[in-house]
């Protein structure tokens, strides 16, 4: 089964090669850790990190697809899953039974283990925090092959939640689900004229709504820069009948074929953005919307990352406590003519316990940018400094290019995390391309 394979992140930049193993059991994971050579070992989920977080050049990469068990759901909503379970699989199990993920990222195509390693957040972060808050137990195999059962408050637990898979191999996760009445969300929509209005609207929504997010258009010039569409909502109460229907079945999804050149450019995206903006209602309230359409709009097309062509793309996501940093940064990127094809703005609530966990109270902005744009490196370096100066940070699960010197400044608990990690992995077995690149 073992084979060297070229692996890259969702952005399809900087591919490297690793020996991919599919251990069938905890014992086999421990054996792989013991046998790992000097280039180390890393668990990889579904490969949805945008950069190089789930690659380990020249070393071993574990695919935990065999860790696919899902237990019965307890009356309190507790469920235990193998680390290799896709959120997609889990949703098909839990939604018909009247439960939902307490926190979900924008795609269902990630594994539970990967979601913990990145401590993912969702549209409800302003109110409910990140995934780590709902994890009651983790099974982790450390660098010596020892198995740990971790609970919130344990030092190794806080290092592992958001720890980018570098504290060990997560094999099993127990989390508390959210009770829902129906699988539909009542969605309010606002079309906004500029960034100011977008941000104001988000603040207003967050006071009353469980979920909120803004799509913004970064290709229209100022004064319209940051115009967008704000959507907010909460689960509808309802009867059990529509729960089964509303998570799309495993239908064959349309897929972008491989091997194509870049399919989108600044003008096509600008026209698309303008159309999206124009089509959005000025204001609509309580529109019943399916889970797929509200939480996972991009999952409708498989391999959508291929529209960026062989050069790939980067997603630049930062969080900042300083609201003024958002317009400053967007304007700076626009001045540098950086083509931002997709931008998502959202507010964060208080941070969780994860030492390297990304969210901090304030704002987060995620920008999709074609990697081939000349001058992008310098523009994003300048953005990094602005983010760091504002007390913010970039998201390691998305990063593909930050300067290593900035990471300790952005993550104040970095040194502490390194100590916990060194204790759990004294021989330095766990390694990733991200870890090599930014010296984690």
């Amino acid at each position, binding site marked *: 089964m073992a084979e*060297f394979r070229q692996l890259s992140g969702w952005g399809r930049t900087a591919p490297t*090669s690793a020996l991919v193993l599919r251990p069938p059991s905890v014992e086999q994971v421990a054996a792989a850790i013991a046998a790992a050579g000097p280039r180390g070992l890393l668990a990889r989920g579904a490969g949805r990190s945008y950069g*190089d977080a789930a690659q380990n050049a*020249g070393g071993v990469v574990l695919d935990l697809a065999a860790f696919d068990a899902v237990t019965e759901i307890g009356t309190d909503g507790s469920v235990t899953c193998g680390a290799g379970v896709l959120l997609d699989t889990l949703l098909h199990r839990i939604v018909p039974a009247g439960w939902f993920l307490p926190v979900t990222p924008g795609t269902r195509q990630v594994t539970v283990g990967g979601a913990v390693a990145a401590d993912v957040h969702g549209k409800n972060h302003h109110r409910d925090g990140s995934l780590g808050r709902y994890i009651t137990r983790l099974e982790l195999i450390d660098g010596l092959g020892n198995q740990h059962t971790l609970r919130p408050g344990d030092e190794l637990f806080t290092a592992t939640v958001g720890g980018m898979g570098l504290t060990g191999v997560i094999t099993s996760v127990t989390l508390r689900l959210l009770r829902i009445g129906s699988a539909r969300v009542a969605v309010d929509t606002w079309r906004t004229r500029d960034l100011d209005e977008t941000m104001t609207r988000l603040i207003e929504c967050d006071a009353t709504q469980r979920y909120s997010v803004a799509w913004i258009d970064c290709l229209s010039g100022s004064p319209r820069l940051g115009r967008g569409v704000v959507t907010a909502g909460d689960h509808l109460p309802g009867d059990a009948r529509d729960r089964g229907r509303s998570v799309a079945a495993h239908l064959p999804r349309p897929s972008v074929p491989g091997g194509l050149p870049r399919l989108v450019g600044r003008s096509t995206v600008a026209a698309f953005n303008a159309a999206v903006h124009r089509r959005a209602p000025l204001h609509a309230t309580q529109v019943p919307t399916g889970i797929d359409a509200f939480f996972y709009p991009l999952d409708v097309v498989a391999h959508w990352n291929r529209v960026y062509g062989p*050069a790939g793309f980067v997603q630049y996501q930062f969080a900042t406590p300083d609201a003024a940093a958002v317009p400053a940064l967007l304007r700076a990127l626009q001045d540098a003519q950086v083509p931002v094809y997709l931008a998502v703005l959202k507010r964060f609530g208080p941070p969780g316990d994860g030492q390297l966990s990304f969210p901090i109270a304030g704002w987060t902005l995620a920008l999709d940018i074609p990697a081939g744009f000349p001058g992008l490196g310098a523009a994003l370096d300048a953005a990094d400094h602005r983010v760091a100066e504002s007390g913010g940070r970039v998201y390691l699960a998305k990063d593909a290019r930050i300067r290593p010197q900035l990471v300790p400044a952005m993550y104040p608990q970095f040194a502490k995390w390194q100590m916990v990690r060194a204790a759990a992995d004294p021989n330095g077995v766990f390694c990733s391309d991200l870890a090599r690149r930014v010296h984690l």
Partner: protein
Amino acid sequence: MIDALGAPQSMLVLGATSDIAAATVTRLAGTHRLERVVLAARSEDALAAEADRVRASGVSEVVPVRFEARDPDSVGSAVAQAFDGGDIDVVLVAFGVLPDQRRALADPPAAIDTMQVNYVGAAAACLHAAAALRHQGHGALVVLSSVAAERPRRSNFVYGSAKAGLDALATGLGDELRAAGVTVLVVRPGFVYTTMTRGMRAAPFPSTAADVAEAVARGLRGPSRTIWVPGELRPVMSVLRHLPRAVFRRLGR
């Protein structure tokens, strides 16, 4: 690691005192990601000067290594020494000599020496680097070929024959190493204004060492694996390659 935008953190430069090599290191140091650069060259004094220059450009660890391109073992140990110190993201094979064609034809040992350096030495560098890069599972091998490799002219076919061999080897290695996560960039400049070409009459579509450096930096971002400098030479050479010999012979003085 080479990041998503093609900026490396470590480099081995073989032929570090050449103008194109120096320009490339300068260009890549400008991304503020370079941390370790191993500079390999023959002349100790020129090497020391180049090491000082690279340190001044902000690279924290600069390691000078002496090697002799005419000795494949010396090439191999320079590569080994670089990789012993940690991962190498980019290996730049930039050494070579450009003989006066007429003298080389009149003096076979001089022609053979050109092949020894430009083909055997450079091929040894590529093969040693390829093995090391394959082992580490990532990285890029950047090989300075020439448009003369594509279709040598009457005035440069001794040089061109060695570059043609090197070009073929590097192109093949690129296909071979793709699955291993390793990129091979084959760079085909036309006439470049450098110390090596000083006093020569410039051919059409000339470029500078900085142009070549810029093309290499762009190439590291992908996805192209064969790079002409300037880019216009690609269609030009595509036409020239198919010209009848009787016609090309008259052009190629």
